[in-house]
């Protein structure tokens, strides 16, 4: 059947020099982002948060007495019971483990700062709509992405409710009730092309700059960790190792409490640590905290009963984190089926609506990723010369198979993808160099093998692409092809001080 469908296939080779940096990747990928379920990574996450909190107190302009009280409360055995427990576990291991955890915390902080600054509204102050959108972005109700001259805002009703809850506009909020579960399945986006209109390069947020909007609804989503299929597994995790390490931390806490079961050595360490943090200059908070939770804590002589509590906590927290990691991995591999409506307003061709059914699966026990789309598009207004309102119909699929870390170079990936499109009428773009997408059938397929180059951030994809249509591709014969993909984020991350 396929051979008959493509009698004129002129297998076409494409040389790909695609500098499509893998933006999802960054320095943190190498550390804790992909596998946060370990003691060092949990320590680094909490450490970075505490540094920010103490710095915020010191920068608050509050009276020295109030700052003193707040810092002691922030670094207390009540507020930081989990961080202190994790630090005590790391203190029982070789010093290198602690140093590594601190390095992780530093890189986490750099990444966080970068994303926060990109959310600034300084570019969004020209008109009322941008201001409102900017306010929504700053408060976490919307997400903003910029690609070239296009700014896209994404959000969902739950995100907006969450942002209101964070700001105290809602007294009581649980994101796991029936209504919220339903609303979580809905999301929307709007894109604006800032090159359009009387002031190119300036975001006005008006109808002329609106280049598209979409609505997305998850028909079936097993990648939601709250899905009923995972409830029993969460219950087992929390009531088992979760409860066990909570008991360990409750025991540990008593050694810091002068009224229950105090240990003079850990109490002295806590008081000295609080004194050091109160006295620290803003720029030294991280260094002081690193010292008190590292070398200073390591030097404390712990009685046997405290050591036993730490050992028990270490065993239980490791069990908890391993099982949690496995559960979240299972969640990440769950299938999704979604429907998406997009209204495209490209500017140089007639506006059209797209109805897309999307499926994502992880077959072979999560060892591969399969994505499939089936979509149908109609013109918003039938263009001159078109036989009807139907624009095109598309079917596409992509299978990614990670082949593992061969020779410790990094993950090799094999990808097979294909797309079939039927265009109902000729579509001609306007502008200085008009092009025409002729009506008829289009078939495109590609096989790709991506090879990482160890430690360089460079990935080399070997690919073969074939199509039955050649108006956008000049080559007409099959050739072997080599393309190079540079993962620029990874390279830049290595240049960071």
């Amino acid at each position, binding site marked *: 059947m396929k051979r008959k469908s493509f009698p004129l296939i002129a297998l076409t080779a494409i040389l790909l020099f695609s500098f499509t940096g893998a933006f999802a990747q960054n320095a943190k990928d190498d550390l804790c*982002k992909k596998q946060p379920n370990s003691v060092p990574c949990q320590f680094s*996450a909490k450490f970075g948060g505490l540094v920010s909190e103490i710095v915020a107190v010191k920068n608050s302009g509050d009276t020295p007495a109030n700052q003193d009280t707040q810092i002691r409360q922030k670094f207390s055995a009540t507020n930081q019971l989990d961080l202190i427990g994790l630090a005590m576990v790391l203190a029982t291991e070789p010093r290198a483990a602690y140093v590594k955890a601190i390095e992780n915390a530093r890189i986490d902080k750099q990444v966080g700062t970068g994303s926060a600054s990109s959310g600034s509204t300084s570019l969004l102050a020209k008109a009322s709509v941008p201001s409102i959108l900017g306010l929504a972005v700053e408060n976490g109700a919307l997400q903003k992405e910029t690609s070239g001259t296009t700014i896209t805002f994404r959000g969902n009703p739950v995100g907006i409710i969450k942002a209101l809850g964070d700001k105290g506009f809602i007294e009581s909020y649980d994101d796991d009730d029936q209504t919220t579960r339903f609303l979580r399945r809905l999301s929307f986006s709007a894109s604006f092309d800032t090159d359009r209109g009387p002031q190119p390069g300036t975001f006005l947020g008006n109808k002329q700059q609106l280049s598209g909007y979409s609505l997305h609804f998850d028909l079936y989503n097993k990648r939601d960790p709250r899905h009923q299929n995972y409830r029993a597994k*969460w219950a087992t995790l929390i009531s088992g190792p979760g409860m066990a390490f909570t008991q360990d931390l409750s025991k540990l806490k008593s050694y810091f409490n002068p009224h229950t079961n105090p240990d003079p050595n850990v109490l002295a360490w806590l008081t000295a640590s609080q004194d050091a943090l109160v006295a620290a200059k803003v720029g030294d908070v991280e260094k002081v905290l690193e010292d008190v939770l590292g070398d200073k804590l390591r030097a404390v002589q712990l009685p046997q009963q405290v050591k036993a509590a730490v050992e028990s906590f270490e065993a239980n927290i490791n069990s908890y984190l391993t099982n949690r990691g496995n559960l979240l991995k299972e969640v990440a591999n769950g299938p999704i089926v979604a429907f998406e409506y997009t209204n495209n307003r490209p500017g140089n061709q007639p506006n059209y609506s797209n109805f897309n059914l999307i499926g994502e699966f992880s077959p072979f026990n999560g060892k591969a990723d399969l994505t499939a789309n089936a979509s149908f598009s109609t013109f918003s207004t039938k263009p001159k010369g078109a036989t009807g309102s139907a624009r095109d119909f598309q079917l596409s699929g992509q299978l990614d198979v990670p082949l593992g870390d061969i020779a410790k170079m990094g993950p090799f990936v094999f990808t097979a993808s294909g797309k079939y499109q039927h265009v109902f009428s000729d579509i001609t773009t306007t502008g200085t160099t008009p092009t025409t997408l002729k009506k008829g059938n289009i078939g495109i397929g590609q096989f790709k093998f991506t090879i990482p180059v160890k430690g360089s951030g460079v990935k080399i994809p070997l690919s073969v692409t074939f199509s039955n249509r050649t108006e956008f591709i000049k080559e007409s014969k099959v050739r072997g092809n080599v393309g190079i993909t540079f993962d620029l984020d990874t390279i830049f991350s290595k240049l960071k001080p």
Partner: protein
Amino acid sequence: MKKRNNDPLDLIVEEDEVITILIVKSIELAELVNFSLNGSAFPGTRPKSEPCVFPIHKNSDLAMTLHYVANSGGSFSVQTTGSQGGDVSVFTDTQNEGEAFRTVGYSFTIGE
């Protein structure tokens, strides 16, 4: 119940006062919460939607663990009250990137 130095986690209570802990805001949290009083399995693992109620007979340490179901975007508020009236303690926190759980401790000290 009274907060010492306005600290929501350091609480002065009457002997045999009954404490109620309620999660009033929950974002990206698992359905269950762990509570351990003085290292025991009591009050235990409880649904977050239900108040956790227990008496305090002596100076005590409570550990409470809330579990995040994702690696970012979580936050919560916990309200604590005592049967003898007095202060209402509210502890609020936001998930750090990659943080799997949050355990906070409460100190309950019989009236000073």
